[in-house]
């Protein structure tokens, strides 16, 4: 067990697992929220429910911004390394 820990960089391996899970699953979920926001906003606008449409549009904007932030931050962290 001690030999295996010495050979494998456990810290780097764990970092690979949790960064991949958080970034990969997180972006999928947040982007799905953006798709919901855009679609619902469009439906509410057609039904002339302007307040609900604006709320969904704001949700979509936030979700897209979060995805963009995640992508840019990921690249920035790598370039600084």
């Amino acid at each position: 067990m001690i030999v295996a820990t010495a050979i494998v960089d456990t810290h780097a391996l764990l970092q690979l697992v949790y960064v991949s899970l958080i970034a990969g699953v997180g972006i999928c979920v947040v982007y799905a929220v953006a798709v919901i926001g855009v679609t619902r906003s469009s439906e509410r606008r057609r039904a002339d429910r302007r307040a609900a449409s604006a709320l969904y549009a704001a949700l979509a904007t936030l979700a897209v911004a979060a995805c963009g932030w995640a992508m840019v931050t990921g690249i920035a962290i790598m370039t600084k390394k």
Partner: protein
Amino acid sequence: MHSDLLIILVVATALAFDFTNGFHDTANVVATSISTRALSPRVAVTLAAILNFAGAFISLKVAATIATGIVDSGAVTMPIIFAGLIGASTWNLATWYFGLPSSSSHALIGGVVGAMIAANGTGAVQFGGLLGKVVIPAFLSPLLAFLVAGLGIVLTYRLVARLRPGPAGRGFRLGQIFSGGMLALAHGTNDAQKTMGVITLALVAHGDIAKDKFAVPHWVVISAASAIALGTYVGGWRIIRTMGTRIIKMDPAQGFTAQTAGAAVVLAASHVGFPLSTTHVMAGGVMGAGAGKRVSAVRWGVAGNMAIAWLLTLPAAAAVGATTYGATSLFGSGVLGPAIIATIAIVAIVVAMTRRARELAAQPAGAKS
């Protein structure tokens, strides 16, 4: 003089390998975007080539692993690097000829390790580094991509379940422009660095770089980035011609999830310096996105073939690398041996490609791949 000719031959072989890496892997990067009609083939290939080029400039952590963490860089000579590259290229060519899925990255590492063992014995290989930085991450990464894509698609389907398929599909197609772009960037980052690492090792052996001071010259970064981008672009046109018969059936949400999972795993691995196989990671991502919808949708037989190829690649490329080193050393330590082997390799590549092209031309249109 001989030494200068040899370094030119080694760098040219490394860049040729980098070109074939881009050529081979275009399908991994663009197939999902094209099959869901998120991007036209022309735009997908052009975007992938540009982002592959850009990705090569992001990080040098993987290049450092290749140059310093797997073999004893002080014991490396140019004929060893040359033999390793020939071992990797030969294995790539053989697996391409027989249609077996294979990883260029594992072939490259296997080839260099095999040639190193033939030249200096097992003591010159850092088996701890090989196991900890290559073998274990290589085994883990497709499973991780499968898990990320599987979880991602299950949660995505739950969230968008009540939406009409048309607007939701359009939303995910738009997202695929960015997820595909990130995947191409990740591919350029991880794969181009392997060539940079190998060229850096050759420059250390040639005496251009001090062995205790790792540094990748700018011209190496630019030439490796250009070779992989050019390979991606040229390989893309072959993909476009064959897309009619090899389309992967996915919906846009699955395509987005598979690409996001692949990009996340490859970029995270590049960040910590693990040289992964993009082929295996993307296969894991695509299978995870498929299994998340319906477990029986995954072609488990293909997964089994990939696992066998994964197990074979490192030892097979190592065996070819070791044999090539043995053959070149028959002609002494000068440029003659590598020059003869390079000539034989070029002839073998031309013969294999001509034969394969003839075989494909003789097959009925629907059976071509």
